[in-house]
């Protein structure tokens, strides 16, 4: 029936679906040039360039982010795509970008959607972060690099003066990454890897982690990938293998501290698109992913968090165009099985209708997901060009199934008992469907030729939200303390957000001044309590100047407002005063320089973070990151 519908569309098709539409203000694109100019060191550094994202970390290695306005330490509900394919490296609602087999130097561009929409065959209610790697081209190409970083504050010669002795602090790397690609005729292949090291020796966490490991906590991570592409049968087809493994100190919020773990994940995928008529095509996707969590051998925490899931996805969609109109209809089935817990099967049917003209674009995304219950979602987006301005609006009403969020409490209710009896879960009612409504308005345009402005305002209302809260945060240093996790499966609340960017750009330089604010605007006690931990304001300025195409200097000054974690109040002042429920407001100044050499075959970059040496801390028992620097050298052949 779907093919018949496509054939009908194709038969009616008229030409001209390629006319450019006004750019979508709800979509942010970060280019490779911007990544290089900012001197980014590792993949999670991308979060610093995202408009309005809130980020947090406990150790300075694993960063978490929220794209639509929410607590970054709650489940990250955004969808990660790598070259058009969903990345399945998440664990209990944590999207660990470090585990994704893409080094920061291998990113060609990043596409970020700050609104719900249909991508890769399924509805993404929490926004999308799509990593595009460098596409293989004809001939042979290779790229490799190494990078190191260091946080200041080591003891130096005072190591030998007992009354002035302090411990060494965090060291990053040496990291290695490499990419090789080959293309001939209709075939292209790309292989890449990254190898990361991190010494988690921040004072706030050193004692508890070195005690658990019996050694200096050195984390290691290896992530390889292979991608084969072929042009065949009139379309393009890709096979990809993605993977990652790490010895990590995984911060598990319900447990209140890091757990030394070994993580392993792998994913095999096949996707492509075939033309079935001049203006119609058929797309297919198949993926198999496995995710494992084990105790780090030799770690002395006395806890085995063993966990293993296997995910199989299969999807099919057809799309066609008729003049300015496009239509898409598809479905996907996902089956997740878990060792020691009850798995599930989720089916989704989705469709999209779009209309694009040179002065306007509209799309309507619809989706129906079925697992234990049924969830319906719709997103309507529209944008219009008015002179030098583009005005946009997005309205979304989306329901989300508990199966789609991958929370710890979800799997706990299905039999995952590795944290018994360390974490007791108190849940009055089973988690159900979360309903979310979002309205976002955008405006973007030119003020005078070098000056442009982007602004947006959004309101987001949630009902039936599942919140995992803790009345009192567990003491990370006291393992015998019982941990209680209270699951509120019917929380509700409302969030308002606003953002403005003023940009200036001319040959040889660009600058930006930005502000974004977000806050809870009503809701239940648990919701408002969770939101106290999210900084309300983020503002700053950045500038970059270039000399030709071989040298760039950039700097970014960011202010982040204070926040407070009420559950951690009893721990404030603990661990020698290093624990504090209050997260201080901070001014962060970063500066970087990059120089290309040898006709852009060799690149060196140097990045300084936190030049003002302020207390850069995002979690009550987390690291306070001081002035640090990163050096990267990269060879492109």
């Amino acid at each position, binding site marked *: 029936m779907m093919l018949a519908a496509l054939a009908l569309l194709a038969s009616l098709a008229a030409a001209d679906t390629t006319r450019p539409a006004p750019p979508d203000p709800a979509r942010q694109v970060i280019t490779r040039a911007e990544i290089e100019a900012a001197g980014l060191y590792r993949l999670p550094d991308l979060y610093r360039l995202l408009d309005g994202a809130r980020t947090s970390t406990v150790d300075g290695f694993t960063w978490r982010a929220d794209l639509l306005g929410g607590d970054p330490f709650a489940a990250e509900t955004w969808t990660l795509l790598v070259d058009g394919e969903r990345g399945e490296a998440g664990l209990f609602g944590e999207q660990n970008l470090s585990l994704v087999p893409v080094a920061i130097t291998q990113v060609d561009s990043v596409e970020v959607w700050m609104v719900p929409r249909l991508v890769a065959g399924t509805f993404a209610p929490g926004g999308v972060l799509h990593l595009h790697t460098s596409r293989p081209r004809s001939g042979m190409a290779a790229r490799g690099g190494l990078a190191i970083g*260091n946080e*200041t504050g080591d*003891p*130096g*010669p005072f190591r*030998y003066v007992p*009354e002035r002795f302090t411990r060494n602090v965090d060291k990053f790397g040496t990291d290695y990454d490499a990419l090789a690609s080959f293309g001939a005729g209709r075939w292209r292949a790309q292989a890449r890897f990254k190898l990361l090291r991190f010494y988690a020796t921040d004072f706030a966490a050193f004692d508890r982690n070195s005690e658990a490991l019996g050694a200096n906590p050195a984390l290691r991570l290896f992530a390889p990938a292979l991608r084969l592409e072929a042009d065949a049968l009139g379309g393009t087809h890709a096979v990809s293998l993605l993977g990652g493994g790490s010895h990590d100190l995984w911060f598990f919020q319900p447990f209140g501290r890091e757990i030394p773990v070994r993580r392993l994940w792998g994913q095999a995928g096949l996707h492509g698109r075939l033309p079935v008529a001049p203006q119609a095509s058929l797309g297919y996707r198949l993926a198999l992913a496995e995710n494992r969590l084990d105790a780090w051998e030799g770690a002395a925490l006395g806890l085995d968090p063993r966990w293993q899931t296997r995910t199989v996805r299969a999807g099919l969609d057809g799309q066609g165009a008729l003049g300015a109109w496009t239509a898409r209809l598809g479905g996907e089935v996902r089956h997740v099985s878990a060792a020691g817990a009850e798995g599930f099967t989720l089916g989704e049917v989705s469709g999209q209708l779009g209309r694009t003209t040179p002065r306007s674009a509209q799309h309507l995304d619809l989706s129906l997901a079925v697992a234990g219950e049924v969830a319906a979602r719709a997103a309507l987006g529209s944008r219009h060009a008015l002179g030098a301005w583009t005005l946009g609006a997005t309205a979304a009403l989306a329901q989300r199934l508990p199966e789609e969020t991958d929370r710890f409490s979800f799997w706990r209710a299905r039999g995952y008992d590795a944290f018994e009896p360390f974490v007791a879960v108190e849940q009055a009612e089973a988690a159900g469907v979360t309903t979310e409504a979002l309205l976002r308005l955008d405006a973007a345009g030119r003020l005078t030729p070098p000056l442009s402005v982007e602004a947006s305002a959004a309101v987001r209302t949630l009902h039936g939200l599942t919140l995992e809260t803790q009345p009192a945060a567990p003491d990370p240093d006291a393992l015998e303390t019982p941990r209680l996790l209270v699951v509120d499966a019917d929380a509700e609340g409302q969030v308002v957000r606003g953002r403005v960017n003023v940009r200036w750009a001319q040959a040889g330089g660009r600058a930006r001044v930005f502000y974004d604010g977000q806050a809870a605007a009503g809701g239940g006690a648990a919701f408002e309590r969770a939101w106290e931990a999210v900084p309300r304001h983020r503002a700053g300025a950045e500038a970059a100047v270039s000399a030709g195409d*071989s040298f760039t200097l950039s700097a970014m000054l960011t202010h982040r407002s204070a926040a407070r974690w009420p559950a951690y109040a009893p721990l404030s002042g603990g661990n020698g005063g290093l624990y504090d429920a209050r997260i201080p407001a901070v001014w962060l100044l970063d500066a970087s320089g990059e120089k290309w050499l*040898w006709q852009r075959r060799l690149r060196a970059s140097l990045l300084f973070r936190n030049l003002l040496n302020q207390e850069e801390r995002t979690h009550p028992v987390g690291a306070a990151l001081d*002035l640090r620097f990163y050096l990267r050298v990269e060879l492109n052949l």
Partner: protein
Amino acid sequence: MPPRALLFLLCVPVAVAQPAAFETLEVGVGGMGTFADAPFRNFWDPGPGAEAWVEMPFYLGQIRLGESVAWHEAVEAEPDTAVPDFVAVYTFAGWGVGVALPAGVRLALGLRAGILNMRFDTDAPVAVRSEAELAAGFDLRASMPLAAGWRLTASGTAVRVFTAERIDLRLVQVGVSRTFGTPEWLKEFLR
């Protein structure tokens, strides 16, 4: 016109008319003295050292890459604290802008940042026989011609070592330098 303003007007045209990036290569070497305050000075006595560097015109101003070495002897006046001697190797990159004064004298003010590597004379485990930390600060440099291509140089540098307990060092250097035209292959590489 006040003398200072006249001096400024004389200097500005010379200061902006610098060679194209990487056009010349200045190689220098000199002796160096290190001065420090307490508490560092209570435990170590910085001895004489040496510094070598290369400097080139950049897109704006000059860049300099260099390395200095200085011996630091433990102060025996602290009998309860037996600290080892160490060699400080400072590898740095710098940038500065200069003005040309009459009689070929050049004056430059710059920034530098690098890694101060401290190698201790001790039998302690290998992992703690050396320490490295970021060290950054300001330079004031002066030079005058000696003979064709040769210059006498002198500089004063204030450097902060970003250890947990910050160490402020003052480096004084006197030496000579020789300026060459940069080989074409090197210019191509650098551009």
